[in-house]
């Protein structure tokens, strides 16, 4: 016990280099795994009718981007994801603010929020289809429905953790509720809110693409399904690769931003 603590205090640079080592090992692990899959595909152990090699996926993805074959679908999906994200973040934040300001309402609704994700939200997609018809509207609706509660929870969490001293400061400075929200609460809760934004983006991706899969006339999900049904493995895998790549990229970006915000927290 004493050993652990004294090793820590004296070896903080060692701890940092441990993190770096972790990062390197991680990259190595991912490369090895992908390499393994590549090998299995090329050697024929995995049939090309089942799955094509990762390198072939990447190459074909590049091709379809260049040719612009699925540009329209990609654009539609991205637009839907963006719209869903923005809506979920803004609506979620506002709802969170409201609930935080009205503790009575909050405790009434809290059980709903806690159990919300127990229900498989997708089962309501058909409802939206019947309501809005096939198109962007039901897709965005279900994605927002999926993502909004996580934003509300993150907002509540963030607002809860604002030190009381800041609340009191806002009152002492006689700020209006609006000013207080924007000038004090928002910046103070920002790191937690950002965690919510990260999750919203993830859910928006899932919501949009899954919906397009189930029923849609356009979008990446639809294109993948179409390619699958027509045995166009190359197109299918290329699109899947694009989705995976963009999700990973977006995640990396958001995580990097998140780390900077969290570092601000720890000061």
């Amino acid at each position, binding site marked *: 016990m004493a050993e652990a603590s004294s090793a820590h205090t004296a070896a903080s640079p060692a701890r940092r280099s441990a993190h770096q080592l972790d990062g390197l090992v991680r990259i190595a692990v991912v490369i090895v795994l992908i390499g393994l899959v590549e090998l299995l595909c090329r050697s024929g152990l995995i049939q090309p009718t089942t799955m094509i090699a990762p390198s072939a996926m990447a190459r074909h993805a590049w091709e379809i981007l260049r040719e612009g074959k699925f540009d329209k679908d990609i654009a539609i999906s991205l637009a839907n994801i963006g719209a869903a994200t923005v809506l979920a973040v803004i609506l979620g934040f506002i709802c969170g603010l409201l609930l935080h300001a009205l503790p009575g309402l909050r405790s009434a609704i809290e059980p*709903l929020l806690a159990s919300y994700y127990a229900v498989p939200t997708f089962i309501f997609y058909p409802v939206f289809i019947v309501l809005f018809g096939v198109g962007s509207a039901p897709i965005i609706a279900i994605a927002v429905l999926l993502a909004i509660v996580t934003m509300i929870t993150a907002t509540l969490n963030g607002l809860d953790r604002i030190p009381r001293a800041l609340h009191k400061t806002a009152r002492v400075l006689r700020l209006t509720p609006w000013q207080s929200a924007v000038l004090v609460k928002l910046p103070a809760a920002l790191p937690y809110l950002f965690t919510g934004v990260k999750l919203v983006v993830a859910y928006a991706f899932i919501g949009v693409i899954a919906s397009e899969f189930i029923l849609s006339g356009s979008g990446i999900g639809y294109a993948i399904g179409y390619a699958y049904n027509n045995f166009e493995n190359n197109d299918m895998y290329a699109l899947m690769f694009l989705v995976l790549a963009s999700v990973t990229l977006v995640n990396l970006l958001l995580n990097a931003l998140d780390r900077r915000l969290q570092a601000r927290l720890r000061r």
Partner: protein
Amino acid sequence: MKPMREMQTPLLYALLAAGLAVSWQGLYWINGGSALASPGQAVLTLGSMMQTSEFWLHALETGKALLYALLIGLVGGLAAGLLLGVNRMARDVSEPILLNMYAIPKVTLYPLVLLVFGLGLSAKVAFGVMHGIIPIMVFTMNAIRQMRPVLLRAGQSMRLTRRQSLLHIVLPAILPEITAGLRLAFSLTLLGVLIGEMFASQRGLGFLLTNAMNLGDIRTIMAVALLLSVFALACNGGLMWLGRRLSPR
């Protein structure tokens, strides 16, 4: 506020349910009868459905897939989480990878699963496992990280084998912490199975939904949606109760 809330929890749930039913009914009135079904209609439809054997065939299909997926996901996720979790480096290296995999829209991989497993029960089970296994792994690894190290050292001083240590010290020690993960995994596994049924199956409750959607049969849609929601909430509540019982300390 807190003691008051806990006292009234069953009452609150009842009020909440009533509130939802009222808003649902309100939406129905606003929308007119064509696009939505009222709560009453949904319940009636559900009632008559449940009297047909056809319905129960579908329900059983979903139930079977869910059960298998849960078993595999739970055991596999716990085992993988335990093995990775007890080694600091393995844990720190794999956790971001797992979290990234978790963030990937798993629907993207569905065609791959179908190509490997074909259409049918095993594909559905695979979907369910895909959705649920990572949260269990991550929660297990997290719980191990938060475990008091002295418990493991005590096991070491007793000369336990690695297997004994994992099964008799680590697992009981982390069980309360991972109940939240278990709840999440349950919901996600159910979701995975249902989505799978919604677009790639001819059987199951998910299929009923998609089928009704194609026919524009809003009453069946809402009936099944109602049933699934109630089922999911009931299971969630049960798991929450179980979680509370497991962690009185």
